[in-house]
């Protein structure tokens, strides 16, 4: 297990490295520098500023400085907000994004697994059909539309929940964003879980367990869940990046101050430093979470460890 973990970590390092390199190249290939304003700066000031940001060095040197900075958690200056460095901005936004994403991920995974199991056990009866409907809604309606609809219904017309804002992390202000984020994720998971559960329930060893007179609940808990979870867990990795894509929209629509919002605003303002810093942070986050998912996968399916 430990060996497998080390192998996966070594496999993930090049991806992080390639991402940083590609980001750096794109940033430097982009037309226009951060100090090309309407009014040209006096040459002395410009030289000073360029020296401060290492722009007077060769590209290779700049690259090593940037990589070194990233390794120490320093993503360089932000070009749109002069008072903060990219790292400071990310540090401000990260807790919000993590709270939002983590709640949505946990809730969606749990609901998806349970719903898929219930549907599989009640195959072709009303819980199953209900699930198909709910899944369809989650997969078909794009998250930005869903966000607007829920906002209007619960925030504006019924006034049950706040239509936006963070409000110091009150649970009510999290309900709608988490719902929007979690719904499609839960939908995909429940569909996978239903399929694999039906398959597992049809296997010989489950029939053997039944013939020994073991009750339904014990069969599900002891024998069926673990193998049925394998396809679900293998989806969690790609599912994370779906969730992240969703959080870009959700933060924007509900006005939450997370890094997704920084990313979009930075993209609209052409703040290259912030865009690339956010991207690298996202990629590193996803790689770490994927490693965790891989560990769970290896625990569930012993075959994986020895591949």
């Amino acid at each position, binding site marked *: 297990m430990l060996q497998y973990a080390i192998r996966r970590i070594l496999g993930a390092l090049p991806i992080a490295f390639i991402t940083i390199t590609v980001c750096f190249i794109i940033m430097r290939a982009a037309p226009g520098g951060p100090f090309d304003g309407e009014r040209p700066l006096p040459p002395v000031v410009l030289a000073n500023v360029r020296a401060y940001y290492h722009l007077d060095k060769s590209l290779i040197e700049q690259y090593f400085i940037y990589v070194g900075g990233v390794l120490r958690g320093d993503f360089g200056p932000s070009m749109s907000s002069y008072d903060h460095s990219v790292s400071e901005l990310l540090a401000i936004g990260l807790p919000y994004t993590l709270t939002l994403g983590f709640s949505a991920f946990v809730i969606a995974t749990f609901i998806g697994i349970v719903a898929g199991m219930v549907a599989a056990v009640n195959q072709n009866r009303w819980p199953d059909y209900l699930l198909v409907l709910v899944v369809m809604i989650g997969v078909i309606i794009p998250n930005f539309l869903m966000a607007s609809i829920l906002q209007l219904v619960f925030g504006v017309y019924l006034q049950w929940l706040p239509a936006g804002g963070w409000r110091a992390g009150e649970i009510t202000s999290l309900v709608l964003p988490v719902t929007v984020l979690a719904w499609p994720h839960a939908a995909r998971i429940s569909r996978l879980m239903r399929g694999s559960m039906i398959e597992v329930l049809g296997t010989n060893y489950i029939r053997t367990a039944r013939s020994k007179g073991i009750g339904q609940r014990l069969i599900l808990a002891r024998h069926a869940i673990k193998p049925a979870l394998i396809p679900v867990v293998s989806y969690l990795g790609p599912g994370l990046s779906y969730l992240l894509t969703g959080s870009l929209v959700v933060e924007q629509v509900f006005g939450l101050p997370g890094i997704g919002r920084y990313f*979009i605003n930075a*993209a609209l303002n052409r703040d290259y430093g912030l865009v690339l810093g956010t991207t690298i942070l996202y990629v590193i986050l996803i790689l770490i979470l994927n490693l965790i998912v891989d560990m769970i996968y290896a625990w569930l399916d012993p075959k994986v460890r020895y591949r």
Partner: protein
Amino acid sequence: MAGITGKDAILTEYAEQLARGADAPKGRSLSRDALRRLLRNRAAMVSIFVLVAIVVIAFVAPAFMPWQPRQVDWSAFRSPPNADTLHYLGTDQNGRDLLARLLQGTQMSIIVAIVATFVSVTIGILYGAIAGYMGGRVDAIMMRFVDMMYALPYILFVIILVVIFGRKPILLFIGIGAIEWLTMARIVRGQTLSLKEKEFVEAARASGVRPLSIILRHIVPNLTGPVVIYATLTIPEIIITESFLSYLGLGVQEPQTSLGTLISDGAGVFEVMPWLLVPPAVVLVLMLLALTYIGDGLRDALDPKDR
């Protein structure tokens, strides 16, 4: 003399038929079988009808519209649907006819979907077929790369490309197409692995055909079934991605419009002008629903073992 059961009569008739050569009993081919299954799938047939209707209306109707998408009606700003002024779906804040803009937006979304799907399918087929056919180490490296890409939030890279190189539609097509090929590559590789063991490929190899020609002439044509299915399932994803980007203000730009742009514009003013949000949302959801049902129907029809 005719027997009591009339067997002789039937046999005679059958013999005559055979002699005429007409109506000879035909073996049912696979594709005909598939078509029959598809025709019997009511949801898929209705969906095909809906989709064709949307496409035809989006491309034909603008020729007959009383208002042009960019034309400003100075006498009707923010007008609700009104048949007397020929604004059947009302006008927006700038006095532009929503129906005309909706048709243009639908057109744009369809064009993006088709071009991007073409790009993604081409990349996916070539990548998957080469990996599957080459096998061994090449295959391992190529598929490991796909695994890695799966985990990355490529939407961020599209956004970066769009930010840095400007919001040109062509870039949007290629960018979206270039991120949606992973699943296609996996499926094609799987199919290729089994195809390359077939006798006709062996025959081609024995007669000295070069690998690239074998892939293009002998393997790719045999992939039609799965490719069609997954292309159909890719289109809705691409439509969602495009409208997602447009919703965030990073996709199609004014005066051009797309369903995502229209929804974004409409969502902000829904409380005062609900007629701006409902029609584009309905068209988008209808299209996604229809495409999903067609994709599922095709999969059931062409790949019965997957049911």
